[in-house]
């Protein structure tokens, strides 16, 4: 198995008037060919920033990016804008959350897709247009030839997201980064888009990096999951591991907060007490400790230091960063969490 993307100790810091914002602070992971990694976390946890860093889209902004982002043997972080441009769209493509904002309002969707194809393939405009039609067809947009001529605002949210997907897949990228692709859509459409993504992934054999705050989405599509909190990875493992036997108190909170059999609801918003910490003045030690209901059970002082991301038991693939001893975690999970799942 070969890794398409390797991210080592990624740090993205923003210098603001109020101080240094550590949006991403030392995150590492890799994605293997054809696999899907889901990065989960609430807004401000740094997941989107991570995705932009991978696309090299922080270049020319105030962000200070450090660490290694290897794709196709190129370190995006070291590469020049020109070099990254070769990768963008071809080796890695991105689907953004708000498709209305992400598509140019003044250009026809057909042209926008064709453009994406033309960047990396020396072909005539006509040929590119043809590809665009095909892609639109592929992503399931009815009578694509006419729709080519339409402008983004003339599409429904779902259709627009399909356009985004068509555009991102037009050059058959090895890695597809989807930043909350379904958040803006209603539930039924979400399902359709996810199905579409899965089918296309099979068809194109590309890997997907799925950025989301929605465990449901992860369950649907991801093979592995990376759980982020306040710019750090706090738990990592296969979907199964993370959803069935979560190790981190935060993960527990997330899972128990998912209502059973009912649709989306805001009534459970306070399932995890407190609010995420300011990224400027992080709490000392474990950044989750202020909200952790179990920190008193810990033998180590949670405020002392940020716990390492360490393997659970013998299993090397399932990693967690928590001061609670494994036995405590098992105990707590059995007695208090499992029943709620």
């Amino acid at each position, binding site marked *: 198995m070969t890794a398409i993307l390797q991210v080592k100790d990624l740090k993205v810091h923003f210098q603001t008037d109020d101080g240094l914002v550590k949006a991403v602070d030392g995150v590492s992971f890799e994605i293997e060919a054809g696999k899907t990694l889901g990065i989960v976390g609430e*807004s401000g946890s740094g997941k989107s920033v991570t995705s932009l860093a991978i696309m090299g889209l922080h270049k020319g902004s105030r962000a200070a990016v450090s660490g290694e982002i290897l794709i196709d043997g190129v370190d995006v972080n070291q590469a020049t804008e020109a070099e990254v441009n070769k990768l963008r769209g071809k080796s890695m493509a991105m689907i953004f959350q708000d498709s209305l904002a992400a598509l140019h309002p003044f250009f026809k969707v057909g042209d926008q897709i064709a453009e994406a194809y033309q960047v990396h393939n020396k072909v005539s405009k006509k040929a590119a247009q043809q590809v665009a039609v095909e892609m639109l067809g592929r992503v399931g947009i009815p009578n694509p030839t006419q729709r080519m001529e339409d402008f983004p605002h003339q599409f429904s949210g779902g259709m627009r997201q399909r356009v985004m997907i068509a555009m991102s897949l037009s050059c058959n990228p090895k890695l597809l980064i989807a930043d909350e692709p379904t958040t803006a859509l209603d539930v039924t459409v979400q399902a359709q888009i996810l199905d579409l993504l899965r089918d296309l992934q099979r068809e194109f054999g590309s890997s997907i990096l799925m950025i989301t705050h929605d465990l449901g989405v992860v369950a649907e599509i991801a093979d592995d999951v990376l759980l982020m909190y306040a710019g750090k990875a706090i738990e990592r493992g296969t979907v199964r591991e993370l959803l069935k036997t979560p190790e981190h108190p935060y993960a527990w909170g997330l899972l128990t907060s998912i209502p059973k059999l009912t649709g989306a609801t805001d009534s459970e918003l306070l399932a995890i007490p407190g*609010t*995420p910490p300011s990224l400027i003045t992080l709490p000392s030690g474990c950044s989750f400790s202020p909200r952790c209901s179990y920190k008193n059970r810990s033998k180590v002082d949670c405020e002392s230091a940020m716990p390492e991301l360490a393997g659970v038991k013998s299993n090397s693939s399932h990693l967690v960063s928590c001061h609670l001893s494994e036995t405590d975690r098992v105990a707590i999970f059995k007695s208090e969490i499992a029943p709620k799942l």
Partner: protein
Amino acid sequence: MKLIEAAPITGRSPAAIAWSHLKSDRTAWVSSFFVFIFLFIGVIAPIFPRILHTTPDAFHPETLDADMGAMPIGSFGGISMQHWFGVEPRTGRDIFLRFVFGARTSLSIALIATVIATIIGVSIGLISGFFGGKVDQVLSRLMEIILAFPSILFALAITPVLESVLTRAGLPDGNGVRIPVMIFVISTFGWPYIARIVRGQVISLREREFIEAARALGASRWHLVFREILPNLWAPILVTVALNIPTFITTEAALTFLGAGVIEPTSDWGAMLLASVPFYRVDPMYTFIPGFALFILVLAFNLLGDSVRDALDPKSSR
């Protein structure tokens, strides 16, 4: 299904943020300093005649060369210890004093006009934005019409008319009429610009939750407009006003320059520039002093306006 929303990075009020921005903004300091200086000399103008032992209107024939087209004697338009900025050709009036008192006239007219235009603009903007429908249509059309007027040109045309009307109404001839007329004209053509912006803001605010809430609580319309909406508009209003003052100052100067302004012998920058035109070649200083001063003042106001805008709305380009 949503998870917990992120909390704001810091909990400071927009005003506090804006103020901290302004304080750290050097341009803002420098420009407001200059603005202050001009306002200051305008205010203390009356002390200068005492210092210089002459008035802005007093003629000084001794400073002119009668046989040379009555141009000032000496270089740079007759600059001397007695006459710091030189003297006017053909009258010998002290340019420094006229400059100082000119600042007084120009600024007070512009500022009063600003206040009036702002009051009208804000209230009309609020009303037409909040009540919408017929009211809005009528008011918007009114603005459209006023904006369709070639303002300077029309101001020129209407000045004598208003003048006669007011004179018949019993106001004294001369500046007693001229100045009110100018203020009226400037604010009349000024307010729609403010109103339009306010209107836009109100329309966007109108549907916001907190207004809905207040409405639900059965607050009266006037309460909504003035208690709920207005307080949320101070930022855009402030910016608009800040950027309008220089426009009004220049309009005042332009009107006077074109002869629809204050009357001899009252000092006014526009009038000084106008009077200097025939001599700009022979006595450049005479043109340069009021012209440059006007430039600095307007520049200062513009810079200040920009700073205020940047401070109040961080999205704006830096």
